[in-house]
């Protein structure tokens, strides 16, 4: 571009001599928006002038970066979200147990029996507080995925922006209720390991969960876990190991 432009530029030595000193501190023709020097950018871009520049320190060039954020809105939005979620994830990893500040009266009323003062086989660690009752989950579901699942149904058309977020929260509460109920079933059977059949029994007990009938029908009634581990030998701490490996194949079945 500059080469072509050159042909249209005044070539008079007088003119160049006049122009050059005026722009002592600018090496590159980059002007912040609204800068009074902006109209001279095309002159500075010309190779005609460049060899004469003295490359001065250009002190004020650091200033604009602190203020002018021309089109960064979207980027801020996303980085903000990303940062938030990682922060949440880290927080969740770092400190899962302390949840006693917020107690939902409805839930605790429902799940009361999960914390009888007489824990069945081996009394669990010191905190006698309800281990699983008033849970506040910090990990969030990916909203985009929720939306996709919602719209997998052909009938479902457009969805407002908040809707998947609302559904995601509902799902979280739903999951808490299912897990808590299944855990209670397991406890009632003196099992430390919550299995699919415990979950099935929990679902079968609740009329509201009738819509899951087809899904739980696939699960065998007999607690499959019984055969290889009895109540006592159950203590193998499993969940840590599962964390690392992601095997998508398991998903499909």
């Amino acid at each position: 571009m500059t080469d072509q432009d050159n042909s249209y530029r005044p070539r008079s030595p007088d003119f160049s001599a006049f122009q050059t000193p005026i722009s002592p501190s600018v090496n590159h023709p980059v002007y912040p928006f609204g800068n009074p020097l902006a109209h001279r950018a095309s002159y500075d871009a010309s190779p005609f002038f460049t060899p004469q520049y003295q490359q001065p320190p250009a002190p004020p060039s650091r200033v604009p970066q602190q203020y002018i954020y021309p089109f960064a809105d979207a980027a801020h939005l996303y980085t903000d979200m990303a940062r938030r979620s990682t922060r949440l994830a880290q927080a969740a990893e770092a400190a899962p147990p302390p949840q006693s500040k917020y107690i939902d009266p409805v839930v605790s009323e429902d799940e009361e029996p999960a914390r009888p003062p007489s824990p069945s086989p081996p009394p669990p660690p010191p905190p006698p507080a309800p281990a699983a009752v008033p849970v506040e989950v910090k990990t969030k579901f990916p909203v985009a995925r929720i939306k996709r699942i919602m719209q997998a149904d052909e009938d479902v058309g457009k969805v407002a922006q908040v809707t998947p977020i609302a559904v995601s929260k509902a799902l979280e509460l739903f999951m808490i209720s299912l897990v808590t109920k299944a855990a209670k079933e397991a406890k009632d059977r003196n099992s430390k390991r919550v299995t699919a059949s415990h979950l099935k029994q929990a679902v079968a007990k609740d009329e509201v969960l009738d819509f899951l009938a087809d899904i739980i029908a696939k699960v065998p009634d007999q607690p499959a876990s019984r055969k290889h581990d009895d109540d006592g030998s159950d203590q193998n701490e499993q969940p840590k190991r599962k964390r690392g490996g992601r095997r998508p194949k398991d998903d499909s079945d």
Partner: protein
Amino acid sequence: MSDREFSSNDDLSLPKATVQKIITEILPPSSGQTFSKDARDLLMECCVEFITLISSEANDISEKEAKKTIACEHVERALRDLGFGDYIADVLAVAEEHKEQLKSREKKQSKMEQSGLSEEELLRQQQELFRSATEKYHAAPE
């Protein structure tokens, strides 16, 4: 490539790691209980079914109102109709929170706030910038 085959199928379940993390939050190691893998997989299926149920119900409700978009109140009504009324308060709170966030973003507050400077300070910096540029322009040494 063949993304309409089974990759989409995979996408229509929840991310396993997230689900596992939430389970662990609900049943922390201190609870003495662990959640087996088959239970987790079943749970994930149930969750997807739950989403489908809610969105289909909410969709019906929105259609009855001749609305084209499923809004939060449709979800709210669906939850109530389906027997999950307990969830509504929390769900609405989250939705409200999100709306608030949106509002502040629309006003482009966030980028100003992120600079950590007051508006006056920013203005001052900009004026200074203009001034220094003008000075440079007029300086024109020999």
